[in-house]
């Protein structure tokens, strides 16, 4: 989590093409490692049009910049090299950030999310995970309703609204039951300490303190602590270094300042973004070695 926040913040901090390029390359590499080439290709495919819009808008509507590319006579518009470069940088940034997000949502599964956020914001975390469960459930029910209710073509829309309505009430009734059973199993609140006193419910099961019947732990080990510290340190270093060294970069009126980029910034950013792959690689290596020994 800290890793993702760090990486995304660092990417957003600067328009330096080198940093953006690095971010993009590592994001792509991590996506390939965890999810495969196909996912990367699909992501890039729908990102294509969007980045194109960003580039075109920046070029067309931005008149600042000294180096003129060309001017259209009848539109009275000047296209400058700087705004084109600016658009390209931002498009690269956008792509990199979205790839990082893609990775994030694959690695942070719902039980991890719940584990992390339930102590801070129990209602919100619980709702997020429950909605994720309810989506396939609702889809399945929709299929069942539609199977039972094949309309003639003329009545299609009317039937659709009826089916939707049926779906809604079915889901609702069932959801209430689910809520009751969840409450009985102590799912409602993460900390049982303040559970009893905040309850104004009248049901018999409300007043009793219950422990959760199913719960998965993610123990926080020394290994994790070290990894977290390293990530935080790297992120802070990279952030500061990038912020101070890439400040010189300016797009307007002339593109300049690309050469100001301290080595510290570069190394820190590379290490930060390479970190998860490095850890994974180390694990793989150790596994191979131990497999060879036996």
């Amino acid at each position, binding site marked *: 989590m800290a890793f993702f926040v760090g990486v995304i913040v660092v990417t*957003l901090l600067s328009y330096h093409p080198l940093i953006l390029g690095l971010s993009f390359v590592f994001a792509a590499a991590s996506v390939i490692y965890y999810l495969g080439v196909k996912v990367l290709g699909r992501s890039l495919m729908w990102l294509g049009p969007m980045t194109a819009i960003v580039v075109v808008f920046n070029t067309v*509507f931005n008149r600042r910049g000294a180096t003129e590319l060309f001017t259209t006579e009848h539109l009275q518009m000047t296209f400058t090299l700087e705004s084109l470069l600016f658009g390209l940088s931002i498009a690269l940034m956008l792509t990199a*950030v979205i790839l990082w997000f893609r990775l994030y949502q694959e690695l942070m599964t719902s039980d991890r999310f719940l584990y992390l956020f339930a102590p801070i914001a129990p209602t919100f975390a619980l709702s997020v995970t429950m909605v994720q469960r309810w989506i396939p459930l609702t889809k399945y029910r*929709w299929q069942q309703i539609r199977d039972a209710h094949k309309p003639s073509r003329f009545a299609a829309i009317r039937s659709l609204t009826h089916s939707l309505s049926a779906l809604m009430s079915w*889901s*609702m009734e069932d959801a209430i039951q689910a*809520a009751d059973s969840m409450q009985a199993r102590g799912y*409602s609140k993460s900390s049982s300490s303040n559970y009893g006193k905040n309850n104004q419910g009248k049901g018999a099961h409300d007043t009793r303190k219950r422990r959760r019947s199913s719960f998965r732990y993610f123990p926080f080990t020394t290994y994790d602590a070290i990894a977290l510290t390293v990530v935080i340190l790297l992120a802070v270093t990279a952030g500061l270094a990038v912020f101070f060294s890439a400040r010189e970069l300016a797009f307007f009126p002339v593109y300049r300042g690309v050469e100001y980029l301290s080595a510290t910034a570069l190394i820190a950013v590379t290490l930060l973004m390479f970190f998860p792959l490095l850890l994974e690689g180390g694990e793989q290596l150790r596994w191979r070695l131990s497999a060879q020994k036996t």
Partner: protein
Amino acid sequence: MNLLISSVVVGIPLIVLVFGIERVKPRPRDLMPVIVLTALAILGRVAAMPIPNFQPATALIILAGFFFGRHAGLLSGMLVALVSNIFMGQGPWTPWQMLTWGLVGYGAGLLGDRVSWAQPHEVEPREPEKNRYTKRRRIILLAVVIIYGVVASLLFGMIMDVQFFVAYIWESGWPGLVATWMMGLPMNVAHAASTCIFLVLTLIPWGKKFHRLKTKYGIRSI
């Protein structure tokens, strides 16, 4: 840089609002309608993806807020944005959508507080005079909610355009913003139209069902 600042600026009210929901401490039972409606909204949004911006999500968020309280609407709006983007692609726009949709739901909740659904004929079932009154009342109710829905969807689209503008093309100044709005206009109109259609189709019949559910299971508005 700008993207970062705007995310933080949007993120802080989001965190405040989430803790606002936590302070209400809703029971799971009160949360369930929100979750069902949110799941429906997300499915609708994903299913209607081929038709750009024609989606029931906003209408369902408004329903959640209107019938189950402002925090329900708020939560529903945030959840729709957060979870449906798992299918449609997370990005820097997620916090913006969460905030805007959340506020749309919250506003619907405020509206629901002002305009009560409780029918006079449910109190006095045998008076025909009041029944007629009910019919007119329902039409007014429908009109109010639909106007709110249309305005909310248009504003939602415009705020999303502002997000796009602030994040990527702010250097282009006012012409860029206006151009973004112009480009987004057909999308926003489609969005408003879909909200309107879904509200007309669902508000009255679903409202009856919601009302029944609330009395049957003792669901409190949150």
